[in-house]
C-alpha cells in the first residue's frame, strides 16, 4: 500500500544513525565505570577479608586492616550530613518558595552556583582557618565534617531547589486559591512531591563527602591513628586519606592493599546510595505516584 519515498528512507536512516550515536555515547559512559570496578575487584579482592575490615593497620600500614579509617569515614560523612542537610534544605525551601524574584535572590542563587565550583583545596584552607583555628575546634572530626558540609551545601541547595521547582506551579496556585498559606502548601503539596528528588541530591552529597580527601587533610584526618576517636573533637583516620597514604607515602605496601582500600571506599558509597535509593522508592510507593 504505502510506497516508501526517498524522503521516508532518508528520515529513517537519520533516525537510526542518531539512535546509534546516542547509544554509543551511553556505552562510552558506562565503559570506564565497568573497567574501574573490574580492575578494583580483580586486584583488590585478594586483600579483602573480615579481618581487613575489623583490624587496625600494622607493620607501618603495610599490613593489617583498615578499621579505624572505615569508622572515621562513616563518622565524617554522618556529622557532615547532620550539619548540611537541615541548612541546605531550609535554604532551598526559602529560595524556591518564599524569596521574591528580585536582584538579591538572583545574586544569592548565582553565588551558590559559584560556590559549587570552588576547588576543594580552597574549602580545605577555609576550614583550617575558620573551624580549626578561629572557632578553636582543632584538627577534629567536627572541623573536618563542617568543612565537608560547607563544600557540599551548594550541591544540596541546588538539587533541592531543582526538585522543588519541578513541582508544577499550578499545584501551588490551586492551594493558594483555597486559602492555604505558603507553609501549608509546602507541607501538604510541594514537599511530598519533591522528596524523592531531594533525596537524590543527598545521595550525590554522600558519595562526594565520602570520597573527598583535600578538605579533611588539614582539618581532621590523621595519617595514622591506631585507635578510634572518642568524640567529635578527636582526629580520625579516613578511607580516602588512607588510600592516598598507602598508595604514595608508605614504602613496601603489597599491591593488593591500596586496591582493597579503594574497593571498600567504593563499596561503602554504593551501599549508602542503594540505601538512599531504597528509601526513595519506599517514599514514592507510599505516595502512589
Amino acid at each position, binding site marked *: 500500500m504505502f510506497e516508501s519515498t526517498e524522503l521516508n528512507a532518508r528520515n529513517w536512516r537519520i533516525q537510526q544513525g542518531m539512535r546509534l550515536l546516542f547509544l554509543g555515547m551511553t556505552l562510552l559512559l558506562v565503559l570506564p565505570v565497568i573497567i574501574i570496578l573490574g580492575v578494583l575487584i580483580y586486584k583488590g579482592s585478594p586483600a579483602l577479608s573480615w579481618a581487613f575490615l575489623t583490624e587496625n593497620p600494622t607493620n607501618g600500614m603495610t599490613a593489617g586492616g583498615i578499621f579505624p579509617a572505615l569508622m572515621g569515614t562513616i563518622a565524617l560523612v554522618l556529622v557532615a550530613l547532620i550539619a548540611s542537610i537541615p541548612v541546605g534544605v531550609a535554604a532551598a525551601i526559602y529560595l524556591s518558595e518564599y524569596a521574591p524574584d528580585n536582584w538579591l535572590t538572583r545574586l544569592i542563587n548565582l553565588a551558590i552556583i559559584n560556590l559549587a565550583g570552588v576547588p576543594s583545596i580552597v574549602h580545605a584552607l577555609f576550614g583550617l582557618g575558620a573551624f580549626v583555628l578561629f572557632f578553636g575546634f582543632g584538627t577534629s572530626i567536627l572541623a573536618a565534617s563542617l568543612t565537608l558540609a560547607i563544600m557540599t551545601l551548594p550541591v544540596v541547595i541546588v538539587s533541592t531547589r531543582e526538585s522543588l521547582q519541578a513541582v*508544577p506551579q499550578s499545584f501551588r*496556585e*490551586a492551594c493558594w486559591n*483555597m*486559602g*492555604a*498559606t505558603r507553609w501549608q502548601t509546602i507541607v*501538604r503539596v510541594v514537599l511530598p*512531591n519533591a522528596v524523592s528528588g531531594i533525596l537524590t541530591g543527598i545521595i550525590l552529597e554522600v558519595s562526594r563527602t565520602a570520597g573527598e580527601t583535600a578538605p579533611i587533610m588539614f582539618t581532621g584526618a590523621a595519617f595514622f591513628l591506631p585507635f578510634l576517636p572518642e568524640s567529635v573533637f578527636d582526629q580520625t583516620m579516613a578511607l580516602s586519606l588512607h588510600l592516598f597514604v598507602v598508595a604514595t607515602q608508605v614504602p613496601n605496601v603489597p599491591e593488593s592493599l591500596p586496591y582493597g582500600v579503594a574497593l571498600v571506599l567504593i563499596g561503602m558509597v554504593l551501599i549508602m546510595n542503594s540505601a538512599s535509593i531504597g528509601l526513595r522508592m519506599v517514599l514514592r510507593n507510599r505516595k*502512589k505516584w
Partner: protein
Amino acid sequence: MSDSPPTRIKEIEARKLSVHYGRYTALSGANLDVYRNEIFGIIGPANSGKTSFLRVLNRMDTFTPGMHFEGTVMYRGKDLRDWRNLYALRRSVGVVFPLPVGLPLSVYDNVALAPRLRGVRAKAELDVTVEKCLRRAALWDEVKDRLGALGSLLSGGQQQRLTIARALSQEPDLLLLDEFSIAVDPVTTMRIEDVLKELKSEMTIVLVTNLTQQARRLADRTAFFLQGQCVEVGPTSELFSDPKHEKTQAYIEGRFG
C-alpha cells in the same frame, strides 16, 4: 430564575476596575455589581477580560507575576485591598478554572484539603463533607469506590468536577466558575447546573462561560465583556431578548466571536 435578583445586597461592587499584566491591559474600567445569592453570568469572546475579573476577586495578583489592578472592588462591603488576611478572603471564595488541577493527592484528600486547612480533624466530619461535595459535583458515583486513587490521574472531565467539589468543600460565600463544564459531558453538565441553582441559596455564584445558552439557563443577571470592556450588564432575560448594545446582540446571535 427571575428578572430581579433575589436580594439587593451587593456582594461585589467593582468600580473602574482595570487589570494589567505588565504593560498589557486585560480589562479596563469595568463597573459592575453582583448581588448576594444570585448567579451572575459573564459572557464574551476570548481575551475579553472575563477571567481577569475573577482573578482579582481572589486577589491572585499577589502571586501572579506582573499582574496588578486599578480601581476599587468592594467584597462584602470591604475594599479588597483592605482585606489584610488574604487567606481568610480566599477561603471564603471558591474558584474553578477551565484547566482543572487535580492535586497529586487522593480524591478524598483533594476534597478534604480545604476543611483540613480550616482545622477540621474529625474523620467522621471529613467523610460527610467529602461525600456531600462529591455528590454536588456529580462525581460521587464514579469515584466512591476509589477515593484513595490519585486525583491527578482522573480523566480531564473528572478532574474538572473534582476541582468543583474542592471549591465547594471550602463552603465558600462566593463561588467563581470559569468554564466549569468545558470537559464535562452534556448530561453531567445539566446535573451540575441543577445543583448550582440550589446552591445559590447558600452562596453567590459568578459564572464565566463561553456557552451563551448556559448563561441564559442559569444566570439571574448577565454581563457581556468584549475586548477588555464591560459592554453591558443586565437581567439575563433582558440582555438576551432586548440587548441595549448592538455588539451584544451580534455576539448572542453568534455573528462574531
